[in-house]
């Protein structure tokens, strides 16, 4: 066995794998070991033509390279001249950026929103409401014997979730790996996740609620009369309930597919009730690396998880009014600071058209659809690769990621840039 241990933590997705290794030559990664395909691209694209290395300012309709001081001044100007600015993004960068972002938003009396508003942010709210338990992934590996993937295609989202923590490892009281675990997959269509699942249920689109209601009724001892529930025969619903009832340690991973189907508030309410009654552990699978870090910082600094307004020196939260999509719909913002995010590629087209008319300042490390339409682009070092950052894993474990490479010359970290804009606004 090899004694020498040089292992890094990967900041590619919210799984934060702690066993990746590299071969580094001349400040460039030549080989990665134990990285999934997604992380491999993240580490190797540090020096591509798409990388932003100098600040840009829009002059006469085209983006031109500029001096950092000028770019900072221009971005402070844009934010100061606006009446209702918004600060948006953060979920792929560290907790440090989020911290500075909240301070800046307070000073500007602005709106602040993270990418949680389009992802599973509402779930974290429900988790606090119902006081649901969380379980560390290491404990899941040791004890859990029934795993349900509900609307969550882990073969695309968290490539190593099944192999590293949930399905295959032989650890704790589960010594034979996959054979002693049961995996259930609930989705509207066949996905590659099915290859590792023992049972698959296909529910009709937007009818997850009916299945949840039926399961709660079965737990309360009521009789079900319908022959088909959400497209499933009654027998398979009863079988699924028996499976849930029969196992001692069970976990449900809910993915974006669960909340995408219609009324997410009601379905999240129902699944939280079911989890509370049956002692199921719920874990959301979000694609962004630091969704939970942003949630934690926002909650500790403003009391609310996302979509917060600091208007009129008051801190108020309303996920139906102050999220980026709703603000754009109502035409109530006139400038935006976007930190390490690409809302243009996520929002519906009619909102993108509205957003393109707003002056935007973008802080990012790579060119995106959003940065092409910005007034000012400020370069930042890649969080977790070129600067040390604090991330929080999807089960709430706080992790500090060491830097692997040196950033390009003159490129600052995201938090430094936001701090400098903050100081310029003071002047």
């Amino acid at each position, binding site marked *: 066995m090899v004694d020498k241990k040089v292992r890094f933590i990967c900041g590619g997705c919210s799984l934060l794998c702690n066993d990746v290794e590299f071969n580094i030559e001349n400040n460039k990664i030549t080989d990665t070991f134990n990285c999934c395909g997604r992380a491999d691209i993240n580490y190797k694209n540090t020096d591509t033509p798409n990388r932003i290395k100098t600040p840009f300012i829009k002059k006469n309709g085209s983006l031109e390279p500029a001096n950092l001081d000028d770019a900072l001044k221009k971005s402070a100007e844009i934010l100061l001249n606006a009446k209702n600015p918004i600060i948006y993004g953060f979920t792929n960068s560290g907790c440090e950026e989020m911290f500075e972002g909240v301070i800046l938003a307070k000073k500007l009396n602005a709106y602040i929103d993270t990418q949680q508003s389009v992802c599973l942010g509402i779930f974290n709210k429900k988790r606090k409401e119902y006081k649901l338990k969380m379980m560390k992934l290491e404990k899941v590996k040791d004890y859990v014997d029934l795993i349900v993937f509900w609307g969550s295609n882990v073969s695309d989202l968290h490539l190593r979730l099944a192999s*590293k923590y949930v399905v295959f490892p032989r650890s704790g009281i589960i010594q034979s790996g996959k054979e002693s675990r049961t995996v259930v997959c609930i989705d509207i269509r066949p996905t*590659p996740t099915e290859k590792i699942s023992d049972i698959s249920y296909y529910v009709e689109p937007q009818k997850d609620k009916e299945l949840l209601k039926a399961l709660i009724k079965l737990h309360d001892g009521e009789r079900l009369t319908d022959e088909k529930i959400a497209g499933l025969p009654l027998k398979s619903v009863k079988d699924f309930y028996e499976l849930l009832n029969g196992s001692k340690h069970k976990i449900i991973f809910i993915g974006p597919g669960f909340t995408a189907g219609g009324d997410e508030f009601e379905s999240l309410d129902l699944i939280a009730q079911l989890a509370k009654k049956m002692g199921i552990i719920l874990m959301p699978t979000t694609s962004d690396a630091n969704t939970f870090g942003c949630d934690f910082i926002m909650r500790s600094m403003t009391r609310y998880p996302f979509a917060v307004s600091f208007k009129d020196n008051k801190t108020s939260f309303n996920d139906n009014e102050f999220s980026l999509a709703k603000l754009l719909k109502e035409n109530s913002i006139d400038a935006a600071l976007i930190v390490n995010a690409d809302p243009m590629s996520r929002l519906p087209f009619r909102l993108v058209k509205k957003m393109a008319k707003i002056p935007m300042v973008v802080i990012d490390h790579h060119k995106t659809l959003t940065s092409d339409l910005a007034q000012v682009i400020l370069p930042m070092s890649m969080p977790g690769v070129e600067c040390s950052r604090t991330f929080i894993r999807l089960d709430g474990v706080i992790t500090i990621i060491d830097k692997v490479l040196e950033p390009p010359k003159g490129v600052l970290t995201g938090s430094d840039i936001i701090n400098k804009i903050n100081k310029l606004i003071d002047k």
Partner: protein
Amino acid sequence: MSKKPSVMEAYKLLPKTNCKKCGEPNCMGFAIKLVGAKVKLDKCTPLFEEPKYAANLKKLQELFPDEEVEGEGGILLDPDKCTGCGNCLVACPPNARLCDECKVGDGPHKEFTDLVFKIKNGKAEVINQQKCRRFEPPILACRVCETYCFGDAIRIVGFVKGE
């Protein structure tokens, strides 16, 4: 390919003339060896020469893609389809026996080479095929890596006793 084509399926598409040009006693014998990946399709020359078998040849080429057949078979890995999820690395029983880290789900150290699978540059690699349960005695008909591969990247060629 998670399901192997049956002998009858292959036999129905062959010429069925028992011409013995392939070196086998009859077409049924050729079909058995073809399904077992012990012989290549181009050994059957009438299939390629005579135009009336063209439709059947196309179907056969789809069923038995032209790949290298090494002795008893082997693990073929398509790097374009591999996503680097590591299911093969952890699920593989010899990997777990050889490396304590693979047993609990972690990746092995980069210098460690005495394994069946390893993940490098975001793709799985077959390092030492001889450690596979299909090669090391007692030979077992194990297909764990092929069954659990998310991207259908792994294909096992050749069949062992009992399959």
